[in-house]
């Protein structure tokens, strides 16, 4: 069964305002060399989906730079491939879309040009490996109209919760802003349906001025349509806040989780050339992920170090995330810090957040 993919790169920008101020949620750096969009995009490629539209809204320069022609995902195709879909605006409309359904209304030409049987829609706010073929197979097996992928999770925030009956049919949908502690069926923001159904939904929404996918399409049709849940049982991290971003990043230091996510080396990303990482004579590195092109002369522990980071002699970096091209001077000390790209910390500075409240340093800031 052939499917077309749609990725929403901006939908949850408000979840992590610190990191998405200058970029889409999809282009937030993750795990030392990746961007969040690499996970849904790679999931699509690994599921044999070779036509993917990426819906953007604002701040999408970094996303376009990252995805480029799609070559690194093998999606630079004559037929299909990856297509960036910026918001469609005309002289009379001054506002951009605010919801998923409005965004879909803006890409009708893409939707109606596609000739695949199914459509898979995902967001960029999760780190997980899902085989969409399994979801589609389950969808066909159960003669469903819409399949929603969920995972069982406690302690999440800003999530859509699915109420399911014993046949895994969705009987209720609710959004929870605040943290909830009990186990719940957390919607992974992955939708699977027939392309023709999505086309109908979008056309109907245009004529009836519907704006919200969950509120105006899913919720009123729980009886009329067969909407089922598909449980994702593997590793799942929702990037719902800066704290969640920090915690999920640190989970990559766990061997089993890391191997589950990256073990088969099929998370694709833009390939940039860097020299191998160099460790100096006094380097002490423990339990850390280090990308290429770094120069490490000091100490690093429980941290994630992105490409081309320089860590000076005597510097101590603990429980921190340091993004691309940052420079940490001699004898500086960092604990529980998220340093965005191109940050430079001059010598002897001592900076610390806490594990429950990491301290964020914005892109290009010099301390």
């Amino acid at each position: 069964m052939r499917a077309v993919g749609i990725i929403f790169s901006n939908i949850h920008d408000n979840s992590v305002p610190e990191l998405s101020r200058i970029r889409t949620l999809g282009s937030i750096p993750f795990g030392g060399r990746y961007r969040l969009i690499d996970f849904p995009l790679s999931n699509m490629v690994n599921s044999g989906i070779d036509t993917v539209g990426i819906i953007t809204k604002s701040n999408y320069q970094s996303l376009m730079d990252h995805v480029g022609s799609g070559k690194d995902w093998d999606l630079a195709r004559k037929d299909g491939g990856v297509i960036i879909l910026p918001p469609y605006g005309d002289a009379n409309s001054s506002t951009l879309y605010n919801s998923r359904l409005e965004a879909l209304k803006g890409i009708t030409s893409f939707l109606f040009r596609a000739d695949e049987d199914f459509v898979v829609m995902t967001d960029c706010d999760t780190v997980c490996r899902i085989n969409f073929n399994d979801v589609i197979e389950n969808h066909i097996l159960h003669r469903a109209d819409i399949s929603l992928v969920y995972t069982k999770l406690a302690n999440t925030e800003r999530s859509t919760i699915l109420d399911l009956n014993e046949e895994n049919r969705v009987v209720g949908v609710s959004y929870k802003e605040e943290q909830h502690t009990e186990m719940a069926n957390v919607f992974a923001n992955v939708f699977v349906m027939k392309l023709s159904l999505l086309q109908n939904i979008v056309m109907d929404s245009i004529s009836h001025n519907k704006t919200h996918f969950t509120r105006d399409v899913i919720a009123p049709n729980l009886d009329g349509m067969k909407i089922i849940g598909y449980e994702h049982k593997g590793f799942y991290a929702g990037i719902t806040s800066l704290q969640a971003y920090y915690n999920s990043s640190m989970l990559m230091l766990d061997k089993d989780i890391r191997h589950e996510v990256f073990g088969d080396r099929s998370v694709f990303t833009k390939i940039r050339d860097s020299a191998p990482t160099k460790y100096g004579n006094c380097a002490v590195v423990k339990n850390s992920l280090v990308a290429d092109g770094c120069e490490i002369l000091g100490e690093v522990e429980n941290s994630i170090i992105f490409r081309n980071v320089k860590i000076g002699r005597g510097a101590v970096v603990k429980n921190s995330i340091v993004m691309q091209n940052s420079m940490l001077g001699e004898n500086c000390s960092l604990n529980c810090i998220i340093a965005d790209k191109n940050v430079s910390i001059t010598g002897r500075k001592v900076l610390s957040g806490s594990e429950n409240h990491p301290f964020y340093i914005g892109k290009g800031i010099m301390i």
Partner: protein
Amino acid sequence: MIRKKKCVAMLLAGGQGSRLYALTSTIAKPAVSFGGKYRIIDFPLSNCVNSGIDTVGVLTQYQPLLLNDYIGNGQPWDLDRTFGGVHILSPYQGKHSSDWYKGTANAIYQNLHFIKQFDPDYVLILSGDHIYKMNYSLMLNYHILKNADCTIAAINVPISEASRFGILNTNEDGTIYEFEEKPKNPKSTLASMGIYIFSAAKLYKYLEEDNEDATSSNDFGKNILPKMLSCGERMLAYEFSGYWKDVGTINSLYEANMDLLGDKPNFDVADSNWKIQSKSPLAPPQYIGDDAKTVNSIIMSGCEIYGTVENSVLASGVIVKKGAVVKNSIVMAETVIGENSAVDYSIIDENTTVGNNCKIGESKTSGKGITVLARNLRIKDGSEILGGQIVDKA
């Protein structure tokens, strides 16, 4: 529109590299790994691109599979061009004859039609045996400025080593009056680097004449260059001063890798002003474990280090298990070093698995030399491989 290129580069990559023994038993020398992520051919290719030369013919012959696969359409070096770019030139079968490349000059002669389609003014001849960063456009400017027919890049070597090289004896103005191939009593220390720029018309003329000469061994060093000199062509030496290392032997390959280490390395591959481009692996960042030690080493993405790595170069995807100690060694891609194994003063090629509790190599001070393990070997638990041994088959 007449489309032409000012300069076309021809890279001789057919050499077997027999002095690298087990490292080149199934691949050509230019495909040998270097510095954790590179292959030797990345250096001349990157030099070409960085010098503004975007048309490169790569002449392959010996075990070309991996090399052809590696170069592909040239995209990693930005050499996937619609006019120009990198082209693999293998020996081919013709209507009247089919020949392996007989010598370096014959290899170029057989591909003159490739060069001529770009109608170049100059042809740059390179070899795939050296590690260096060189701006060929400066050499080309020199060639043009000096109105030369042929310019040979040369480097000063210690007098004690001069008898290993082809030596150029020059006048004060840089013109060459004599070649000496591996002279017993060298008159000068200016060694040929095997890098030549020819004015295209002269190259065509001498290659065609050389092809008619049945007694010739069709080699640039032995035949073409001496012939040009005896015919009174204007030949110049272009002096290069910088890092340049022939990596044709196990010892020199080892030394060149070690030259990358240290706070101020002899050779800096991370130089952002002269990027060495290469095909980058798709692997997650390297993971350094809780009990790991990584000191004075170069380590590539995809590695997982749970043991100790000291004074070593590790390529992508190498796993060093708990308690293992890798010292003064070069470990190539996807190789695994088992628990509590000790590796010292060794080169271990790609995709080899060393079992647990093994002892590979002996320290440099033992005087036994570098231990070499070939690719795709499975070394059993508890094995001991002595210093200086070369293991080609398990």
